[in-house]
């Protein structure tokens, strides 16, 4: 039997929603979710809400960079280590 996209219900679509948004489904499984969302307005709204939530999470948490002092200390540490004795 050919394993093409088949119709899925809301339960299954929502169950796979995060994997769908994360790009973790196989093309066929993703296509099934996409087709469901295309014709199911309530599920599409859930999907838009969850996408907005994940975008918000990333925006709120990614800004922080390693402090400049730390970057320097790491580099110095490596320089010093390669001058000193190697792997023990």
């Amino acid at each position: 039997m050919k394993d093409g996209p088949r119709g899925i219900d809301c339960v299954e679509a929502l169950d796979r929603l995060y994997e769908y948004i994360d790009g973790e489904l196989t093309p066929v499984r993703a296509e099934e979710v996409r087709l469901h969302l295309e014709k199911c307005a309530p599920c599409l709204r859930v999907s838009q809400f969850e996408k907005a939530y994940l975008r918000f999470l990333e925006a709120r948490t990614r800004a922080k960079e390693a402090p400049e002092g730390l970057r320097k200390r790491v580099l110095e540490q490596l320089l010093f280590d390669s001058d000193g004795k190697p792997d023990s």
Partner: protein
Amino acid sequence: MAFEAEALPHLDTVYRVALRLSGNEAQAEDLVQETMLKAFRSWHQYEPGTNVRAWLLTILRHSFINEYRKARRQAAEVDVHRVEGFTVFEHVQEADPEGRFFDQIVDDEVLRAIDRLPDEFRETLVLSDVEDLSYAEIAKVTEVPVGTVKSRLFRARQALQRELYDYAVEMGYIERREE
């Protein structure tokens, strides 16, 4: 390829994950230094062409578990099972279906809420939603099957969403829906 050129571009990632694992800046810096030194010394074990970011994060996680985890101050933990059968969307779909209330919540509040997640859920969420690792990469770093990553991520995201929703209600960013 030299260690500096391959590994150092990931310093921000290593630092952010260290910060969320340890929960404080001084320890995060110690953890980063230790991780980079260990990685440098075992650079010959790294297989060129494989995922250097996942490799560094694995070293970081081991250092944290072995030396720092016990010292992590126990914040009030989020109950990741509290969300059973509850979805925030159901509560906001009439008032705010696009989740605009999220935008009023500031960075520090989000980070504080993440820090209250139990260890295994926090690390999974941070690796996925802050650092954008794939499920397979997270499975490798946290040494669990992909199925476990999936279920932890689901619970962590939903629990965090619930925490942020409760906070938004408390702050008056959104009205709690009458039951």
